[in-house]
């Protein structure tokens, strides 16, 4: 029996008095795409940090492909695509420089790039269709291209597990479709992908399964079941899709935060 790609067992995390995760449990099989849905403050980022081993849980265990997070990190298996607001877009690096950072785990003491490293970076850039933009400063890309640059970093790294934090924030419809297609391709190549989001409309096309998180895992199943309005209502106490208001004059969808997103 192969071990699950991501195994989170009864993980509890406190920040001082505040309980961020409460016996959260999640099992994700290899080559699946899972959408992690929850409000801000529901523990999504904490769960990411626990999976990456940045926070040691107060209780519970985490396994990545049967290994401890630190072992999995050393082997370069974990790729991470940060939230846009966590990135300094003015930083003087080119797209190629950023993607090359995915190779550092494969390189020696001074991280000198070998021919193989350069080939891996070129291939990753082609794969996300950013080849022509390789020389641009990273801030000079569009919202969707920025995301793809970081996905390329994970590809160049050879990550078998990828964590994406809000990949569709600040991304237009077309780029969203491109990213979705790209992630589906990666999954069919065997990459396990966990996507954190509080934006619901993109999930059914992207994900094989979805998880509702509110300090603990409330529900885990196929996206169309998990995202049923009654489930969301049960979990969050509000009708996120506003299906009962067909005459609503305002176009757009509400996210779980109640923010209105126009498309």
């Amino acid at each position, binding site marked *: 029996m192969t071990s699950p790609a991501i195994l989170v067992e009864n993980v509890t995390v406190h920040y001082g008095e505040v309980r961020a995760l409460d016996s959260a449990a999640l099992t994700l099989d290899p080559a699946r795409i899972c959408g992690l849905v929850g409000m801000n403050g529901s523990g999504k980022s904490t769960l990411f940090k626990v999976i990456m081993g940045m926070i040691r849980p107060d209780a519970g265990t985490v396994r990545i492909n049967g290994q401890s997070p630190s072992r999995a*990190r050393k*082997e370069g298996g*974990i*790729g991470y695509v*940060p939230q846009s607001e*966590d990135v300094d877009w003015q930083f*003087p690096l080119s797209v190629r420089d950023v993607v090359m*950072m995915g190779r550092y785990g494969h390189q020696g003491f*001074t991280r000198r790039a070998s021919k193989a490293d350069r080939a891996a970076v070129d291939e990753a850039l082609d794969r996300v269709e950013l080849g022509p933009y390789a020389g641009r400063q990273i801030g000079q890309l569009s919202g969707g291209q920025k995301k793809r640059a970081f996905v390329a970093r994970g590809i160049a790294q050879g990550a078998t597990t990828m964590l994406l934090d809000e990949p569709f924030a600040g991304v237009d419809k077309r780029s969203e479709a491109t990213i979705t297609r790209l992630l589906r391709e990666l999954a069919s190549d065997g990459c396990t992908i966990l996507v954190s989001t509080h934006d619901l409309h993109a999930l059914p096309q992207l994900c094989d399964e979805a998880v509702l998180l509110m300090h603990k895992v409330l529900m885990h199943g196929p996206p169309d079941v998990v995202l049923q309005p009654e489930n969301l209502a049960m979990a969050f106490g509000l009708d996120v899709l506003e299906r009962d208001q067909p005459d609503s004059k305002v176009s757009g969808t509400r996210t779980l935060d109640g923010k209105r997103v126009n498309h």
Partner: protein
Amino acid sequence: MEILLEPLGYDFMVRALVTTALAAVVCAVLSCWLVLIGWSLMGDAVSHAVLPGVVLAYIVGAPFALGALVFALIAVTLIGVVRNTSRVKEDAAIGIVFSSLFALGLVLISVTPSQTDLNHIIFGNLLGVSVPDLIQVLVLGVVAFVILILKRRDLTLYAFDPTHAHAIGLSPQRLGALLLGLLALTSVVALQTVGVVLVVAMLIIPGATAYLLTDRFSRMLVIAPVISAVCSLAGIYLSYYLDTASGAMVVLTQGVVFAVVYLFSPRQGLIGTRLAKARRRKAAALATA
């Protein structure tokens, strides 16, 4: 030519020039990371906080660098403790810790005999650099420089995306500590030239100037030290002919060059961007007319 060669007739001027050039280069390289991480205030703090360490090292006859490193560590630890265990925010924690340690250094100087020597630490004593001073600066400067250059890619990764550094199995904490340690070493190097009070200028201005000139970090690492070295040497020559304070003149020159770049840099400069905006507006007006 005569103007450039005349000062070189004096040994103390030669030593001053070598020390300054070296300190300028090492500080400038380090400054590239400091300005991008947003550690300018930390540079200020560490460079001031090493003072008591240097004085104590002088009293017991230990190498300055050792005392400086110990107190840099103490300063950083105290800042972290105050920030994490009270409601005081980081900038306040930095201000409290470094000014207190700096004051401790001043008190130690005031009770230590042979005051003249130690006062030079505060304002620098470029023209009084002795041969042993020069050797110490050379050794520390070269060590700091070599480590910075060898580990430049890891340090840049740490500055840009510490989470990714962690995800691929590197330790952001260790990289941060390395950078702080190098900051302490570099502070000692720069003490000789411009003194504790003005070290921070050499640790910030060159990196900030280079940042306005390029979109590539690898180029910043060349532009910053070149600008810094040229400014420093120019500053010393100016101070020789104008008979002004040498350390202050070095910093003043760097500041003037920053101002020029800030105004005239082709892509980031105030005037360049204004002109480009005006041009675009004019083109748009023509297009609609």
